[in-house]
């Protein structure tokens, strides 16, 4: 049985690795886009305008209450009806970015809210401008507390990229489906696919944990004199 698996592993790996490559491209693009969009939602919330903050909160609530799969279907099958026609990979990336932007915004919001109120008061009492306060006091400290949830989001994105299989993006899950349909070696094919996902996710999780510790050290700080 193990010998059989190893033979299949050799045989199926090239196709599955092609899929893994697409998975990584979709995930990375989604990570970037959802980060930017999430930061945009958070910027609206902090803008000081009640209207913009309301728009941000409503958008986040709406996005979070629609299943990711529905958003993927919507981007690929529904948007063409109003003339927005995208390739599967673009539609998938866009839908995942939209879906995860809500969680990104929440990550950022919690990180900012975790900063001690005294930090803001110290900056205010100096007469520091809002923008400087944000960039020099809030953001550097928020980054640290945002990192663990951000890493979790990255892992969720990687796993959610498998949803793109349903709109024929040739990523890992899709390749595995096609292979198993062709060869009926379902157990071996999906074991391989699972191992490939884990091979990416586990090091990512470890990296997050490592950098978390490293940053915690930088915050408490060591005197370098």
């Amino acid at each position, binding site marked *: 049985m193990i010998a059989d698996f190893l033979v299949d592993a050799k045989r199926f790996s090239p196709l599955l690795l092609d899929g893994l490559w697409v998975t990584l491209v979709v995930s990375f693009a989604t990570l970037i886009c959802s980060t930017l969009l999430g930061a945009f939602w958070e910027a609206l919330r902090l803008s000081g305008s009640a209207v913009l903050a309301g728009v941000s909160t409503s958008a986040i609530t709406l996005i979070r209450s629609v299943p990711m799969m529905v958003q993927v279907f919507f981007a690929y099958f529904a948007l063409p009806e109003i003339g927005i026609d995208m390739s599967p990979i673009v539609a998938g990336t866009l839908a995942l970015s939209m879906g995860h932007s809500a969680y990104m915004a929440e990550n950022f919001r919690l990180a900012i809210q975790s900063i001690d109120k005294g930090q803001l*008061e*110290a900056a205010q009492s*100096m*007469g520091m*401008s809002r923008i400087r306060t944000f960039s*020099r006091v809030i953001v550097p400290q928020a980054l640290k507390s945002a990192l663990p949830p951000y890493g979790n989001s990255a892992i969720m994105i990687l796993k959610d990229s498998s949803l793109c299989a349903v709109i024929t993006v040739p990523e890992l899950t899709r390749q595995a489906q096609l292979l198993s349909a062709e060869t009926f070696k379902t157990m071996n094919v999906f074991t391989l696919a699972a191992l490939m996902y884990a091979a990416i996710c586990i090091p990512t999780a470890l990296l997050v944990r490592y950098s978390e510790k490293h940053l915690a050290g930088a915050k408490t700080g060591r005197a370098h*004199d």
Partner: protein
Amino acid sequence: MIKFASVTKSYGKVEVLKGVNTEFAKGQVSCLIGPSGSGKSTILRCINGLERHTTGSIEFDGIEVTSNPASLTAIRKKSAMVFQRFNLFPHRTALENVMEAPLYVHGVPRKEAEAFGRELLDRVGLGHRVNAYPGTLSGGEQQRVAIARALAVKPQAILFDEPTSALDPELVGDVLKVIRDLASTGITMVIVTHEINFAKEVADLVAFIDRGVIVEQGPPSDILVQPSQPRTQEFLHRLLDR
């Protein structure tokens, strides 16, 4: 220098300041004492607009404290605050903390800001810790960095909000010494404190605050030695009986 006229402050229906009238003169050290919850910190925080007073007027060096951002910024640039919990920026070294406002609020050239920053840290006894992060400093050291940070902008007045209340007893002395040294330089200071003996020694004016009003104020030799009001007498008794 700092004038209060009929200042009130309410949080919803709760009135925490009920008509405060006073003046903190230029070059003088004024100490605000009173039980916790009396409103003494609120008075201090109204001066630089960290809290907004509800009615009445507050003036800082001729500038009215309003919600107008320009006048608030003007006041904040001319003043500095030292907090009970230090509020140093944890991601910056002692020296960077001290240089922050000169560099990023006042536009002082970096070289000049750094030289002055080192001099100030030296003056508060931390010349050897310039590159230390706040997390590696004791409470007393952090508060001395915070005082150096306040001095870095050459403020017209420094507002101290219970600067020794969060410190271990053995560290209080170092911080009080630094503030005492400052007092003799003639800078205007308003200090909210529980340290009665310290107030007796450094203050030009002591104001006793209770339940949102200034019960009495005057030189420490009057207020702290022979107070005329029963509430002040009772408060001092309770403190000294500990």
